[in-house]
């Protein structure tokens, strides 16, 4: 859980403001509230962003992730709460005074300027002289593989090239924070993966903070040091990608990331210390890491990842076995995601190797038994 030292996130409720003010994080959002009239966009949100980290903020549309980024940039006012940078409150700093360049979803390159002039824009605004401006712009165009494009117009570039110009335009002023608002969403899958690698490399080499808003799991998990998952204006979970993948903090996170089966259960403690989880799909044994934290009679969600479940043909009623019907299959390269549904209607996802799937000879509509080891699975109190 050491990743949580990078980032402290209070999921619900107002934190103690007294000790929050002491935070020495690079950027710190403290009890941020944002509402549009009646509608709540961001709800008492706390987030510390460490210097030089790549932080990805993700969530379903309308979760407040873009609003949060826009508040950081100064494009939106904060209804209440403080945005701190190096211990200074920056709520009242105008957009043009914040020095947090943004890579826009639409890129927002200036069509009336050449590639070089676009990159020079920030320097020009800072009063950097013509010759230096030019050489710094050309240097950054070179770093991003755009030599020879300096005098082109924006409309003469491909999507990937425009992306690089947008990056160069932000990075040329050597900011300590870069904001990115779904910057890769306009690119095709292949180019997007290539840019992910480049973005991560850039961030590591420059050592500056990237705050990256995305709805894409693959972008967030492949690049970020810290992933923040938001829902309805609040942070559901913040942590390392591995932490979030292995230990989703809420059923929402598990559902949002997908690939897990979720059983609503009630706990019952057995004499030997094991835990029995009673659900509408039967009772399950649990000996996993969260064993000791549970009390008798707690309402919990048992989350079992798709790769932890194995299946066999036919029905069965032993412990940690659920009989289910196959309702669908998706082929993802060498893997198959099998979608099952229990008699009680609980969806189950199982991940199999293509060849195992063939060996089992299962078709949609077949009855199968899904089972998992009592050590596997992850329990969340609900």
């Amino acid at each position, binding site marked *: 859980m050491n990743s949580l030292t990078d980032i402290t996130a209070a999921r619900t409720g107002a934190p103690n403001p007294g000790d929050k003010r002491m935070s020495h994080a690079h950027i710190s959002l403290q009890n941020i509230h944002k509402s549009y009239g009646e509608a709540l966009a961001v709800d008492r949100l706390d987030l510390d962003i460490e210097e030089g980290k790549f932080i990805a903020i993700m969530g379903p549309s309308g979760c407040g992730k873009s609003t949060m980024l826009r508040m950081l*940039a*100064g*494009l939106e006012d904060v209804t209440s709460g403080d945005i701190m940078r190096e211990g200074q409150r920056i709520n009242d700093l*105008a*957009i*043009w*005074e*914040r*020095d*947090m*360049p*943004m890579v*826009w979803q*639409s890129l*927002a390159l*200036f*069509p*009336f*300027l*050449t590639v070089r*002039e676009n990159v020079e*824009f*920030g320097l*020009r*605004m*800072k009063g950097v002289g013509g010759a230096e401006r030019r050489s710094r712009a050309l240097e950054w165009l070179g770093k991003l593989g755009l030599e020879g494009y300096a005098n082109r*117009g924006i409309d003469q570039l491909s999507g990937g090239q425009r992306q690089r110009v947008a990056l160069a*335009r*932000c990075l040329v*002023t050597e900011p300590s924070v870069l904001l990115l608002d779904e910057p890769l969403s306009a690119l095709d899958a292949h180019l997007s993966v290539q840019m992910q690698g480049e973005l991560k490399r850039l961030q590591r080499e420059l050592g500056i903070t990237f705050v990256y808003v995305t709805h894409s799991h693959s972008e967030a998990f492949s690049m970020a040091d810290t992933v923040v998952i938001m829902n309805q204006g609040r942070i559901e979970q913040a942590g390392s990608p591995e932490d979030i993948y292995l230990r989703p903090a809420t059923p929402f996170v598990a559902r949002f990331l997908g690939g897990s089966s979720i059983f609503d259960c009630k706990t019952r403690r057995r004499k030997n210390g094991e835990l029995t989880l009673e659900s509408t799909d039967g009772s399950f044994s649990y000996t996993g890491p969260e064993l000791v934290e549970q009390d008798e009679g707690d309402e919990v969600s048992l989350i079992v990842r798709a790769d932890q479940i194995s299946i066999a043909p036919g029905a069965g009623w032993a412990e940690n076995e659920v009989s289910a019907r196959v309702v669908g299959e998706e082929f993802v390269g060498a893997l198959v995601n099998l979608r099952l549904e229990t008699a009680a209607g609980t969806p189950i996802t199982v991940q199999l190797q293509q060849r195992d799937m063939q060996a089992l000879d299962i078709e949609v509509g077949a009855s199968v038994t899904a089972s998992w080891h009592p050590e596997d699975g992850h329990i969340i109190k609900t």
Partner: protein
Amino acid sequence: MTTLISIRRLSRLAYGGLWSLPLPLWLAGFFLGPMILLIWLSFWDVRNFLLTPDFQIENWQKMLSADYFWAAYLRTTLIALSAAALASLIALPCALAISFFLGLKARMVVLGLFVVPFFTSYLVRIYSWQIYLTENGIIMKTLAAIGIDSGSLLNTPFALMIGLVTLTLPLVIVIQSISMLSLDKTLIDAAYNLGCGPRRVLFATVLPAVRPGIVLGALFAFIFSFGDFVTATYLGGGKFTTLSILIADTVKSGQQWPRAAVVALVMIATLLISALGAISYAYRRA
């Protein structure tokens, strides 16, 4: 079967053909035809006040070597350029206000108001300006009341500008507003985000981004002013001989249609070149 298919194909061709027919017909009948006629006419002769088909370049020689023609040409160009610049300058703050400060409803109302002048005849509007500008007119009397002797405002360059701006301003405002309204507002946010304060954003971002609209607005104002006859006649009193007035005079005096055709052709060529130049400047990359 084959006949069926060919009939269907034929009818599809006929359908497309019928719809695309009016444009070439119109262009041939009302543009290309008259244009050829005009060019041909410029080589005709006038004998005993009678137009006579001929092919002689005397009309071109006469007009292009006449000082009064080039004086009128220069005057017309200067007047039209001034009117275009004036209308564009006045329109700019209006269009900015309409596009960036007015709400959706107010914007529709204001833009609607700028269309209203087109409901009344341009000639009527120019006549009413005469009442204001004439000797002992409302403006002169008001100025006299506070001790300023303005003299007659009619037949002055000021009156010319009033008339031409009356003609062109609404159109220029509408063109500029449309181009500002279609401006991607994210560009302005991006400029702010890169440290461009509100005082610089107009010249560094907004105006360059809407340059096509500003240039096209000015081009329309120039075209209308360049060929205008009404203002030059009724507010300029014929004191400022523009090319339009020159055409009218040439036709009236001695039936010199061929020489008028020469003037008209020079005007068309001028407008064509200015339009091409303006458009290529408007869409030129930085």
